[in-house]
């Protein structure tokens, strides 16, 4: 009992740092979820280009970033770029690295959703006189986004969990603070159990929100 009390006491004592780490995790996960979605939409749009060179280049981009471990990309930028005199903060590197990676995955979710759309609608829109840009923004995007909600929100959950690897490039997030706590009190089992529980809670909130979004924005079929 006294051991559990001591552990809680440690957590409370270290509370401000843990909270600051949690806020950093939320800031990073929130930022990369937004930038990753926007970049994913852009990549998805390029996959529909009439220009074959653009389509092929986009396909290679997607293959490259899906096939490359994220940590390699982060290390490349964090340790590699300074050799050319280019220095970014850990946060900036994390945002750029994650965005490039997440965009590739999000574009795949959107492409899969797009393949499920009745293509006659697009021909009808052309026949009505809409431009290809209007067809994308008015017909394709609203439907693909809504159909891709499960995949896109699943990606947000992954972003929360995966953001923890940013601590390897010295970004002081929730995981980094908890690791620091564990190294101070040597209560590895308890600290990492609490760490896992907090990530589980955050991801559960995302899954809950995802279900609500799916219900609210479902396209009647």
């Amino acid at each position, binding site marked *: 009992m006294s051991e559990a009390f001591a552990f809680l006491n440690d957590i409370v004592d270290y509370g401000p740092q843990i909270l600051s780490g949690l806020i950093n995790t939320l800031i990073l996960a929130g930022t990369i979820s937004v930038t990753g979605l926007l970049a994913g939409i852009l990549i998805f749009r390029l996959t529909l280009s009439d220009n074959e060179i653009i389509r092929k280049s986009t396909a290679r981009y997607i293959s490259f970033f899906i096939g490359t471990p994220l940590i390699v990309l982060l290390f490349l930028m964090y340790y590699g770029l300074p050799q050319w005199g280019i220095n970014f903060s850990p946060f900036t590197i994390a945002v750029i690295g994650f965005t490039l990676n997440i965009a590739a995955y999000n574009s795949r979710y959107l492409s899969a959703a797009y393949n499920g*759309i*009745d293509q*006659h*609608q697009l*021909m*009808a*829109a*052309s*026949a*009505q*006189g*809409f*431009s290809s840009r*209007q067809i994308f923004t*008015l*017909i394709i995007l*609203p*439907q693909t986004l*809504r159909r891709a909600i499960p995949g896109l929100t699943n990606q947000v959950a992954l972003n929360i969990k995966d953001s923890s690897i940013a601590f390897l490039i010295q970004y002081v997030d929730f995981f980094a603070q908890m690791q620091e706590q564990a190294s101070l009190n040597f209560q590895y089992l308890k600290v990492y159990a609490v760490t896992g529980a907090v990530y589980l809670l955050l991801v559960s909130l995302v899954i809950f929100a995802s279900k609500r979004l799916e219900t609210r924005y479902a*396209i*009647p*079929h």
Partner: protein
Amino acid sequence: MTLLQVRGLTKKHDDVGVLNGVDFSLCKGEIKIVMGPSGCGKTTLLRCLNRLQEPSSGEIIFDGEEITAAAVDIQQVRQRIGFVFQNFALYRHLSALDNVKLGLRKLRGLSDAEATQRAIYELSRVEMQDHQDKYPAHLSGGQQQRVAIARALVMDPAVLFFDEPTSALDPLMAREVANLLNRLHDEKVTILCVTHDVTLAKNLPGDVLFLNHGRVEAEAPISELMKNHANENVRAFFEQKAPSE
């Protein structure tokens, strides 16, 4: 007055001719029916006329303008040609009302209130005002067809193209479509209708353009085409259709 004049229209797919020199004209207020065996190029003809498919050669003069020229703003031309597709092709994420409003809002730049007013008017014209808030998935085939017609009509087109308007409908709905087309014709709407449905063709007042192997082989009222026509292909087509009529 001629609204649409087509001369020597051809369309090739991988060197195979789908349209092999189509000539015909359509006057304002006229209704014309395009018939012919499967694969004769009916749907391709319709899609070439507003360049959803690019013709290989030939002239299309629409309202005095040659529209196959590269400099033509085809999106502007398409806004004056209503197109009702075989499977209706309504936008699945929009209600019936929003399907009809979209073109007015985004192509014509009307305010939401103006677009709503005009869309409701067009929906009532096809007796769909009571279903305006329903999504396409919640409408029957016939109801979707009517919304698609309202969506085309609301843009105040110079001509309406119909691609097989009865093929996805049961006989009762098909009869309603015939009535609706007749009503539109009475209102002086110019119509070009592709169909293989002899019953529909019989119930429409215009001439039939008989298309075979990508060429117009006959043009006459359906009653004449069905009466032991001189052209062997026309005879074969209508003899094959006759037992089911």
